């Protein structure tokens, strides 16, 4: 049973990878290809956000701080210090991870709404700093970043390469997420999400665990921001340090399902496509914001766990049960339980024979 569902998962992953890798050659025109890059960038950012949001349940609305810092760190290293673009991307992301350490120590002390507000405040501070410090950051005029590939590489080719680079970064992050999800560290993080005091009382070093997840999330978010900056070639503080970008990461993750590996990716594809569609269809009107607000409301009201868990439970409902109640009589159940008990770990059972409780108490 387990191996079948694992096999299905593997087939699904391979199909997903094939779909993503073939998208550049399937895309009918460069514009759609560029939309694909934007959506993959959202997917990278949402998945990065989910390292802290999904595992620990700390909802940060200010992750644009790290994508923005990642973009600027990468860009400034290239422009001001003439560093190789790919090296700049790595160094910039590491630098942002480093900055996230004190920020995490300070902000993870508070929970719930307070944490949300602290996370927003950092974005607003950074927006002001990057706008005002024009001599260094380019201020409101923006920062132009030279393309990492030569002039001879044309637009469509650029899009294709960056699409694949985003897919590669996403793959690394999904692998890391999966590794953590199944590990002891992951169980500790999820315990924090479910009940932080309880986790701490059981001996989970919550402060360290939260901080590691937070810094990892900031690092990946910065890498996403840096890669986007290399592709787009231009940074403006208003768009980099925007509450909206951070909100998109949250919306996408919630929509897809924050407890699922692929939830943020699915959410990013849906929300990213919708945003681009509304922008293309209604131009510069703010209609896409209204639509996103409505979508967020619908998700929170009707699918609080996100699409993936909602679909999984739907599928489970139709799947035939291994042993239906109708097929087993009461007597057989008693027999089974007796046999199970005799066959279990003998030392404890013999010393303390306790029958399983099926209905232990009442509320």
């Amino acid at each position, binding site marked *: 049973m387990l191996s079948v569902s694992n096999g299905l998962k593997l087939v699904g992953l391979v199909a997903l990878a094939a779909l993503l890798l073939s998208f550049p050659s399937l895309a009918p025109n460069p514009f759609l290809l560029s939309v694909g890059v934007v959506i993959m960038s959202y997917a990278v950012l949402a998945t990065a956000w989910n390292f802290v949001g999904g595992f620990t349940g700390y909802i940060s609305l200010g992750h644009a701080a790290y994508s923005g810092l990642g973009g600027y760190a990468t860009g400034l290293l290239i422009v001001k210090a003439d560093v190789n673009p790919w090296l700049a991307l790595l160094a910039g992301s590491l630098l942002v991870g480093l900055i996230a350490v004190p920020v995490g120590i300070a902000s993870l002390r508070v929970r719930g709404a307070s944490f949300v507000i602290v996370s927003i405040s950092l974005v607003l501070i950074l927006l002001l700093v990057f706008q005002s410090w024009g001599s260094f950051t380019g201020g409101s005029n923006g920062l132009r970043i030279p393309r990492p590939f030569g002039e001879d590489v044309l637009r469509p080719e650029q899009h294709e390469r960056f699409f694949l680079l985003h897919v590669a970064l996403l793959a690394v992050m999904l692998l890391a997420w999966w590794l953590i999800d199944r*590990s002891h560290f992951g169980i500790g993080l*999820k*315990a924090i999400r479910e009940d932080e005091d*309880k986790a*701490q009382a*059981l001996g989970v070093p919550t402060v360290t665990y939260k901080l590691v997840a937070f810094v990892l999330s900031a690092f990946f978010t910065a890498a996403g921001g840096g890669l986007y900056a290399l592709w787009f070639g231009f940074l403006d503080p208003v768009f980099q340090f925007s509450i909206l970008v951070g909100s998109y990461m949250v919306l996408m993750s919630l929509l897809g399902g924050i407890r699922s590996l692929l939830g943020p990716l699915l959410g990013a594809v849906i929300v990213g496509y919708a945003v681009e569609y509304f922008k293309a269809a209604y131009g510069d009107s703010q209609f896409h914001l209204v639509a996103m607000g409505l979508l967020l409301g619908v998700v929170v009201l009707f699918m609080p766990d996100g699409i993936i868990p909602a679909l999984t439970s739907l599928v489970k409902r139709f799947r035939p049960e291994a042993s239906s109640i109708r097929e087993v009589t009461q007597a057989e159940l008693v027999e089974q339980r007796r046999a199970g008990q005799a066959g279990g770990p003998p030392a404890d*059972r013999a010393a*303390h024979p306790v029958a399983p*409780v099926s209905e*232990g108490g009442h509320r």
Partner: protein
Amino acid sequence: MSTPTIGLETTGLTKSFGGVRAVDGASVQFHHGKVNALIGPNGSGKTTFFNCVTGMIKPDAGQVAYAGRDITGRSPDKIARAGIGRSFQLCRVFPRMTVLDNVLAAKRPSRSGLLRSAHQKADVEKAREWLTRVGIEHLERSEARDISYGQQKLLELAGVLMADPETIMLDEPAGGVNPALIDRIADLVRSLNAEGRTFIVVEHNMDLVMSLSDHVVVFDRGRPICEGPPSVVKEDARVLEAYLGI
């Protein structure tokens, strides 16, 4: 191994909330290897005392020592790692995690084992052993939010045991559960105590306290007013006054 008679000990422990002294200079000694009970009227500061001892609340003054070491004001996870496990007054489990993962969350991995799979064979077997011991092993795949309150209480206990604490502090283990389950929990406490674990139990169910414990500490207005074996405490005039206001 020489076991000290006194395991957990507080000296002058004090905690105020605003103008209310919830714990007021409490100096208490709990007997190592025994079942200790902490009783007292509602609002007498038992749970606050518990929370100060386990690090959930930082005391304003006083010391907490465990096995001769000062643990005052340490973080709850450090205190848990020092060998003190606890349950919560209104039982707390991880609702969206499976019963098995709830127990595995209490396993303390080595630094190098942090990223290894949480479902190592030995750990899973150990977790199943504890689930079997409390009697809910047939629920291991259920999510904790889907099982009954009584089963959640047993699950919480299995989680605490997975961490293998020397001393277990239970905050109202019999609160809100049916009489049959109370008996089961009492049996568990007795058998675990016989295996060498110390218990400190806050409880309102007097029959349970009197039948279970070796040593009873009575709290009133944030400090102990009387302590001793159940038979002595039951007759003490101060206890009767505190409970009945005579």
